[in-house]
């Protein structure tokens, strides 16, 4: 499992999600802290492509050896891609939470929502 890290180029949601924003699209995932708290992930239940997600609301479920947990959307939009690797290899969420373990790609409906997210330092401060 990777060591604790929180990349500078991401935006963070207090519910331990990250967004990598690129224009009007963004990739979502969960943070190192979230995957560490969940323990070994055994299943990712993704939304359908085309589904609408709303900021601060659950859009998917992650099952670990401990529990089934909701995944909260850091931003609102429409799902345009899900990470197919996770279907057979959900452990990528543990091993590589910021790259190989990304969850979904979203076309944002309101890019101004990004301003409400936390930067790296502000998010890390919430963890202590």
């Amino acid at each position: 499992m990777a060591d604790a890290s929180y990349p500078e180029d991401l935006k963070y949601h207090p519910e331990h999600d990250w967004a990598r924003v690129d224009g009007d699209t963004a990739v979502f995932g969960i943070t190192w802290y979230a995957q560490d708290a969940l323990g070994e992930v055994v299943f990712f239940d993704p939304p359908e492509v085309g589904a609408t997600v709303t900021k601060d609301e659950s859009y998917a479920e992650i099952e670990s050896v401990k529990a089934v947990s909701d995944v909260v959307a850091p931003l609102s939009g429409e799902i345009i891609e899900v990470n197919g690797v996770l279907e057979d290899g959900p452990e990528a969420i543990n091993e590589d939470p910021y790259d190989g373990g990304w969850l979904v790609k979203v076309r944002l409906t309101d890019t101004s929502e990004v301003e409400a997210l936390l930067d790296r330092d502000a998010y890390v401060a919430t963890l202590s």
Partner: protein
Amino acid sequence: MSTPTSIPEERLLPAAGGSDPRPLAAPTTSVNPIQRDHATTIFEKGAPGRRSFVAPDSGVPEVALDEILPAKLRRATPARLPEVTESELVRHYVRLSRRNFDLDTGFYPLGSCTMKHNPRLHERVTALPGHARLHPLQSPERSQGALALMHGLERQLAEVSGLPHVCLQPSAGSHGELAGVLLARAYHEARGETRTKVLTPDTAHGTNPATVTMAGLEVVKVATNPDGGVDLDDLRAKADDQVALIMLTNPNTLGIFDPNIEEIASIVHGVGGVLYYDGANLNAIMGITRPGDMGFDIVHFNLHKSFTQPHGGGGPGSGPIAVSDRISPYLPLPVIRREPLASANGNAPATEGFEGFRYSLVEHADAVPEGAPGSKSIGKLRGFQGNYGCFVRSYTYITSLGAEGLRDASEIAVLNANYLLAKLQELGVREHLPLAFGTRCMHEFVLSGGPMKRELGVKTLDLAKRLLDHGFHPPTVYFPLLVDEALLVEPVETEAKETLDAFAEAIAEILREAVEDPTIAQNAPYSTPVRRLDEAKAAKQPVIRQPLG
């Protein structure tokens, strides 16, 4: 990280009270029958033609099989059944049972599961032929004693819960929950209301959200305040006219009794909602306070927890429900009716009956007077009347303890939990395993392994596995979810002080050991029939069929 197959001498566990090291894994030159018996199924044992019995002559004329069962309806090859002698059969299952950790072997402080001693008296009573050989299709006229026992148990549970109407049918706690939520739904629907929300505190019993979903309703989480009780502001914000019910466990899964229960009841009743009490933690309050007096409308009991049954292997359990007057018309059918013998059939006193009363089962709602229990029934929850053996054990338990005995049981359960908590603090575990909320507890408490994980690299799961090497069943881990690295400990009333002391010492010892070398706990257990299991692989690639080859 590699997994050691042998343990260096310095990691041996000191024998209790002495300095002699005792190996955790037996030397390979000493093999007991259980270790010799590698993981084989009964199908891999024996040999073709081997049998456990010789069938006697039937004493009736033989008939050719073709005459009674056409060949096309028969299997072409014989079923591959185990072919073993009786001694092989007995040894196989006895060895399997010895690989298990059970309550009759050792301390089993599994939080919220109430693993209390099962008195042997209960087994004697349950084995009486009138109970053990009672057939579920026996007519009520010929089952008067059994119906009298069930009716008596209903009255006992009504008294314990403070709610007047009881249904014994549900087969488990989760089944009782489902019954309760369906009753609340039926209550609202009969009033022309469609309410969909179920308020569920994050300290509620873990099955509650699943029950809500299964009943077709929607979970709305309610937050916990810093004292470990329901956050009243959050509750007020979420309580509206869409709330069907709140599901509450009190004391909750933090082992904390919520002192605001009357205020909670007033808020939920104020918006027309129903209060549901999850009986998972009833063992803390029996004979001291009653859910009905706190304002609850529906309660489920876990007979297998609070009122003793051998449990933990998936059943049989029993999850009766008790309800208030306003919920009672929706109760499942059949209901047990009791009438004085003289008026049972109009004229001549009946010869059947039990101690002056005649008992019957009312199977149809139209045979129930308007407004009486079952008159607008949600229907039947299962075949027959429930798990009768559980009823006999619980009736025996409640009858033999009496009201004062039940209160004693709860008081000692709470005392034992607080003693164990204090003992752990005295041994200095607080630095790595602090109490999650508050300073005291009811019948169980939750420690947080967060500091242990951060400072020692030892997770709660590692601690739990290492406890197995000390001869203890681990407490519940990773529940409730709101506590980081939770360890939920319920010591119950039937454990001796020496056992609690030894358990506390074991936890302190594991922490001392972890400060020196965290890999010991990280790779535990060492002394069990199987080592650390790959839970992730078991969840991702479950092997649930064994080819018979």
